């Protein structure tokens, strides 16, 4: 192989650092590095250069809690025994060669049982240490659910709150539930169960039937288990009367077109 042009070589090294070498370029570079192993240092320097980019970012500081959490995790024996799988133990798939193969690390443990227990402990510890985001999300979701239930309890404590029961039209389906309405409140709460989940593009439509006329209220969908717990906007002077639920498309039609699945007891 002829000695490559410096420009081409520079391009290859930059391409390697950037991870954008074509298969042909990767082969070329591999060959060049076999003949000139001293060039590996230059490839590494280009990666060091790339790794300096974050220095140009605006200075931002995490909350002080982060530092505390880190140091607190060290005091936790479960976390302290944690040995994550090293990230850099993965083989570099960017190119067919691996000139920077990291040193293999082995746990100095002879007994497979100890290794197994260590693995389990590590898994637990990693879960504890790293899943705080997921846990926080769950807490937020639960908080939201509790808040929703609190507002429902507050509504039920009102002396003039009405419960409008809804029952499924199909006797083989045990769909049931209530709409909780407090006169003067701008929202009602809809609680239903055992309604079939609908395909995309369809939704349940709530109607108020006044003198035989159906006035559309709101559309809603149920979760995978067929439940819904939703707050409905209740427009002022909305004619609360007998209620019905049909299956409709979105956007809702002015009059019912789909099958009626539930009706209120009033």
């Amino acid at each position, binding site marked *: 192989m002829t000695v490559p042009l410096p420009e081409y070589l*520079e*391009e290859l090294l*930059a*391409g390697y*650092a*950037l*991870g*954008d070498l074509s298969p042909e370029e990767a082969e070329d570079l591999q060959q060049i590095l076999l003949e000139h192993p001293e060039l590996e240092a230059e*490839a*590494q*320097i*280009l*990666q*060091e*250069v*790339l*790794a*300096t*980019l*974050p*220095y*140009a*970012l*605006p*200075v*931002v*500081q*995490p*909350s*002080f*809690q*982060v*530092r505390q*959490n*880190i*140091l607190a*995790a*060290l005091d936790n024996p479960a*976390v*302290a025994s*944690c040995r*994550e799988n090293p*990230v*850099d133990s*993965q*083989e*570099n*798939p*960017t190119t067919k060669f*691996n*000139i*920077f*193969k*990291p040193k293999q*690390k082995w746990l100095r443990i002879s007994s497979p049982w100890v290794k197994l227990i260590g693995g389990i402990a590590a898994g637990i510890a990693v879960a504890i*240490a*790293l899943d*705080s*985001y997921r846990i*926080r999300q769950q807490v937020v979701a639960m908080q939201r659910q509790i808040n929703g239930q609190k507002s429902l309890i507050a509504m039920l404590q009102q002396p003039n709150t009405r419960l409008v029961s809804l029952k499924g039209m199909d006797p083989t389906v045990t769909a049931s539930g209530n709409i909780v309405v407090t006169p003067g409140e701008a929202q009602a709460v809809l609680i239903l169960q055992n309604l079939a989940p609908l395909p995309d593009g369809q939704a349940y439509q709530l109607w108020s039937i006044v003198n035989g006329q159906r006035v559309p209220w709101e559309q809603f969908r149920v979760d995978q288990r067929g439940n819904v717990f939703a707050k409905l906007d209740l427009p002022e002077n909305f004619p609360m009367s007998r209620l019905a639920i049909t299956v409709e498309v979105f956007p809702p039609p002015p009059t019912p077109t789909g099958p009626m699945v539930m009706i209120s007891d009033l």
Partner: protein
Amino acid sequence: MKLVMNAQVHAPTNPQTHAQDVATDAELVKAIRAGESLALGNLYDRYGNLVYGLALRILTSATEAEDLTQEIFLNLWHNQTYNPDRGSLSSYLTTLTRSRAIDKLRSRTTQGKFLQRWSQAMVTATPPATPFDLAALNQRAEEVQQALTKLTDKQRQVLEMAYYQGLSQSEIAKKIDVPLGTVKSWSRQGLLQLRKTLKDLIT
């Protein structure tokens, strides 16, 4: 070798000072391996803002960036994968942070495999220890900012899109509507230009 850190740019989150403030990164890493948690706190004060700033830039969520910052420093404590002989600690931390942040981004947006390849490549190839270690943090920031101004807008744009958004060159080509070859050329030339400008810091 003693390294006096001037961490004004990435100011310590804990203003406490002690003897380890003037320790080199390598000395602090050694102390971590000896189980000295104070050393980890010291490295956090030194690089916490850098790691967090990068995580925030990629993830654009303060909560996720804080979680990742925590993860990175706990990784430093628990995993002895950093080898001071093979590169600077700051490069190791930014490379690992970028890799993990983009992993999270990808799991959020299910972006392509190319990204995974690059982020892994960035981690497998730890750069060597260099006199770069000697530069104070604020000096590094100024140098890098200055070096970036020497790039053309296009070079800077494609480098930043690849680095912070984890986009492949072909994805960038589609996004900014230029041929793939042009994007490759811009990013490679941009990186080489940075290398030339920063040659005094990285040799």
